């Protein structure tokens, strides 16, 4: 689904800044990028294109969140 994996991250934080929809954050413990809010990914690939070490793999598939009857 959307961003599949981040492999070989050097913790530069470029993807965090680059993502228009704030999907990626740096993990406070490891200092590496994590896919924190996958539901908000718009599959635009900007993070992948900006990543200096080509660490990000993206799939065109996206699952729609489960619809629940209240908030």
């Amino acid at each position, binding site marked *: 689904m959307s961003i599949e994996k981040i492999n070989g991250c050097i913790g530069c934080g470029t993807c965090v*800044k680059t993502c*228009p929809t704030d999907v990626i954050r740096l993990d406070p413990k490891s200092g590496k990028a994590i896919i924190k809010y996958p539901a908000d990914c718009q599959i*635009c690939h900007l993070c992948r294109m900006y990543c200096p070490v080509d660490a990000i793999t993206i799939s*065109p598939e996206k699952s729609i969140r489960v619809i629940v009857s209240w908030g």
Partner: protein
Amino acid sequence: MNNSDSNTGMTRRKFITVAGGVAGLAALGSMGIYSGWGKNETELNTEEMMNEEHSSDVLVIGSGMAGLFAAVKAHDAGSKVIMVSKGRLGSSGQTPFAKGIFAYDSKTSEVNLDEFVAQVSRSALGTNNPVYTRQMAEHSLARVNELKEWGFFDSVLYNKPFCKPMAQRNIPVVERIMITNLVKENGRIAGAAGFSLDEETIHLFKAKSVILCTGAGGFKPNGFPICDLTHDGTIMAYQIGAKVTGKEWNDGHPGKAKNPAACFDGWGNMFERKPELTSVEIHHDLGVDMNYLAYMKGNPFKMGPPGSEENINISGGPCRPAEFSRNGHAGEPPKPPKGKRPPKKGGTPPGMGGNSVGGSSAGMAIHKSEGLVPINDKCESNIPGLYAAGDALGSYMAGAIYTQVGSSLAGSAVQGGIAGEAAAEYCKTVEMQTILPVKMNEIQEEILAPLKRESGYSPAWVTQTLQGIMIPNFILYIKKEKLMQAALAYIEELRDHHMPMLRAADMHELRLAHETRNMIISAEMKLKASIMRKESRCSHYRLDYPEMDNENWQAWINIFKGDDGEMKLEKQAFGSWPV
């Protein structure tokens, strides 16, 4: 099922929640209802939020093409400038994905400026503002030449070329801050406020003038890279009394039936191309023709090439001026630009093969046709000191239909420059205003409210509900009175009951909560304007009023907040400025 607090103990906030809710939880439990629903699981302590204050002559909100030129030109005209962005310079909004930019060169163009403007106006069926159409063409080459100098055309990604002129001028760029409120004092603009996505900090920007370069917006649709655009600028300006226009128009971009959420893939790798120049080529495209076909024939359908048999033999539907027919041209067709192949007959546009589905850009109008109402050709709004440029300005540069190819990006550059210079001039005539702490406290409370709610509705759920109401083809695109009234009733329910109860657990969700609020208000505007416009024209199609009504509707619709707080709508004649 409940979260365990056995490890490090409860925060003060959680303790209060649990203690205060014991009776309620017991009651719910006895009914067999899961007691955790809707509970705000925030870990943040809103009592310990930090504050940061910034000050400049001109504040530019947004960091796409319009924001870049607004900041650069305001600086060059003598102003102290700060840019603030929800994302990052050159990589947020629609700018990163725009790969064609129009440049009008009077020396090489076979069409003179008067004819260019006249041709756009004919395609736009009068909906364009010819002053802005001409301005875009007149200034486009100068802006494109500056972009060339900065390396724009040498790069797939725009952050670096955009940073160059900003760094040369030492213009500060404050990124990853969502601005939610404009501040007005004594009837004129005094600044803006918002919050950081990364730290628990509220930011106040004091400024003599503010330029909204916040882009347009949509309903976070699948298949178009606008999920960070939620009409933030329009809505915050509306809240302080600015007039807004263009809410009845639609952008009719289709998406792919296969993996419809994959913007990148749907565009056939176009996002990895370097930008290119376009020259005079005027269309009448991206309205709701395909929505009409899908409505009549079913969906998904194979998107046929222009004029193919598949697309004809359907009666009715949106009117297209004969001169801009896709099935051969009456009148004088524009010649294909030099060095470019004319579109192959029978071929599909690049990246547009395969089955198509509608609604990929749902909630957005044609570029430059929705946003703040300009009161003159300087991108100025009816609030003194407040300007807008690019898709945040309802300039009607292109009209209510997609006309000149590549003019969207060029228009953002041109209008950014115009607004920047005008704002700098305005700053010379006014003093910085004082924003009283009591006002700032009010705004801070409003910003933080979703974080403070113990329970409520998640922005994701409310957004999903809104999408279900607004995006269907029979609501947003193929419009009918009865269904729009029905949709409006739903949207009013979201506005009155759910909007005040949006909750947020962290700064990311706080952003979603404010974006959701903006989308609800935009949905209300879109429905009310669409109900009011009882005719069909350009990208607004009414099944119950399928004809163009030149007697009553040579007019734009402006929306504003009345003295009673209610949403008001008024007409403004084509070709006129607000009274």
